[in-house]
């Protein structure tokens, strides 16, 4: 016997969670891009998407975020902290790759200095993932040794039943259990069989790629120039990536008052590393693309024992010039 959440009860669940004080967030089709956003009714959720265009990252590490407000009076500086808004929330229908992305970035935001903007939101969020029963040509979680039903970063995993009838409920954490206690009246015991997860073919041999990347001789390989020749440095891949975490700090305001903000930044941009002197350690697009690949599959795992990629495929899917991590690692596999 397993617990089942039937689709026709979803509206009730959303209402129940909301009345319990939880903000309910899930995949939503926006005007141009789909993303994870707040919903008021279960019917607002677009659970049929392969995955939203925008990743889950922005709910924990927003595109722009106020960090503090400053007011300057004569010989006095007053600052007020903006803390990440305290709002318990449930993210319903996250994709396993997006949930994995959060778990991947936890050690980065926590080593030595703890970034509370990230961790407060992590603490306040219950993540309910739905195992994938469909994928597109860009999905590549299996190449990253993850799976369409990976539980990494998730509090509850739902396995779809046929004909969109509902889901089998697998509670993974205490936090997940607590969130489902709230809606227990809408859950049923049953002995249904979930649909099989989608087959995601392996697109490259990760181990072989990592071995190649770890060889210092390949740092200067002409491969980097060739593979990144058509990169226009638009940063779409880094912005949509569920694990890319680079940011800039900028002041918005004037000499007397304003807000200090943390904004997404990208290793694709030339100014990202430019010194005051004009010297730029990563002065070419190929050096910047090399940095992105090396960081994800060589440097980051070296520090935190995990690849900085969860295989969502957004970098390739949304790239205006049809390149991305998949294409690059496939080429490396051939070397």
């Amino acid at each position, binding site marked *: 016997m397993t617990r089942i959440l039937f689709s026709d009860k979803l509206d009730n669940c959303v209402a129940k969670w909301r009345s319990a004080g939880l903000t309910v967030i899930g995949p939503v089709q926006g005007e141009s891009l789909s993303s994870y956003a707040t919903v008021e009714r279960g019917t607002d959720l677009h659970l049929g998407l392969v995955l939203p265009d925008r990743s889950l990252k922005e709910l924990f590490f927003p595109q722009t975020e106020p960090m503090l407000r400053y007011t*300057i009076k004569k010989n006095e500086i007053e600052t007020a902290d903006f803390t990440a808004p305290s709002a318990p929330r449930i993210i319903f229908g996250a994709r396993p790759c997006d949930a994995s992305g959060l778990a991947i970035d936890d050690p980065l935001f926590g080593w030595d200095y703890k970034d509370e903007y990230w961790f407060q939101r992590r603490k306040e969020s219950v993540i309910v993932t739905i195992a994938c029963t469909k994928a597109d040509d860009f999905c590549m979680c299996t190449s990253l040794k993850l799976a369409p039903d990976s539980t990494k970063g998730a509090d509850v995993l739902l396995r779809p039943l046929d004909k969109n009838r509902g889901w089998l409920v697998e509670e993974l954490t205490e936090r997940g259990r607590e969130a489902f206690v709230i809606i227990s009246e809408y859950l049923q015991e049953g002995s249904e069989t979930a649909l099989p997860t989608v087959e995601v073919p392996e697109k490259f041999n990760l181990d072989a790629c990592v071995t190649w990347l770890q060889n210092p001789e390949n740092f200067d390989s002409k491969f980097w120039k060739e593979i990144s020749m058509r990169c226009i440095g638009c940063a779409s891949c880094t912005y949509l990536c569920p694990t890319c975490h680079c940011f800039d700090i900028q002041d918005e305001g004037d000499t007397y008052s304003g807000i200090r903000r943390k904004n997404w930044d990208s290793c694709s941009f030339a100014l990202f590393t430019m010194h005051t002197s004009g010297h730029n350690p*990563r002065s070419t697009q190929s050096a910047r693309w090399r940095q992105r690949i090396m960081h994800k599959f060589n440097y980051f795992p070296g520090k935190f024992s995990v690849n900085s990629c969860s295989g969502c495929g957004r970098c390739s899917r949304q790239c205006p010039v049809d390149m991305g991590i998949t294409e690059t690692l496939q080429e490396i596999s051939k070397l």
Partner: protein
Amino acid sequence: MTETIHNAQPNIYKPAIMKIVGRHDEAPGVRTMRLEFQNPADHEQFKKTFRTGMFGLYGVYGEGESTFCVASPETRKEYIECTFRQSGRVTSALANADIGDLVTFRGPYGNRFPIEEFHGKNLLFISGGIALPPTRSVIWSCLDQREKFGKVTIVYGARTVADLVYKHELDEWQERADVDLVLTVDPGGESPDWKYRVGFVPTVLEEAAPSPDNCIAVICGPPIMIKFTLISLKKLGFDEKNVYTTLENRMKCGVGKCGRCNVGSVYVCKEGPVFTAEEVSRMPAADL
């Protein structure tokens, strides 16, 4: 090198408020400021953690923050001194600030020069132009406990006589019997009354030919100077393990998150900015 583990704070990006208590113009566009902590708790934290070689983010609200070293030594923690060239938005705002004005400081961050390991050894400091400030922090940290070290040699050069920073301190070191100061300016940069050397730092260093025996070298300068100075030090017989330098990459967070300072797998803000030449040689040269 061991890393210090810091306790979690509510807002790791919030800087300390500092009052400018002194200003000194060093060279055209280059200024030193002395800053005092306004909040005793911030000052206590600084006194507990600051060691020579660490850096900080200096800022002016409304303009932003810039990363540079702490130019004052670990033996003088009542204040922070920083020396900067006015070149961008933040440094211009800092340059426009007056004595009594308030600015911000976030840090100290990064690792340090392990000067206890230098006890009993001869010290060779090599520096070029605006890179004397980080070296100066180490120099005074050692000169303030002079008896613990052997011979002290300082090789310092700049493009022109006007570009030499800390001129008053250069005079002081020149007069000290326990410091051997070798001053130079690039060819063409000398003034009519210049009585010291003319030539590039690596050349002058080779002429001065300090002995590598029981000697630690600390070099700071623009990338091109470091590159050729390392070659000269090798010629003189210095072991890469005994040569220290400090990397100054662009940074925004200073605490290993914003992603821009890495050279290869090394996060300069956390594993550096101080490295031995041996450590630097293991980094991908194209990324430096």
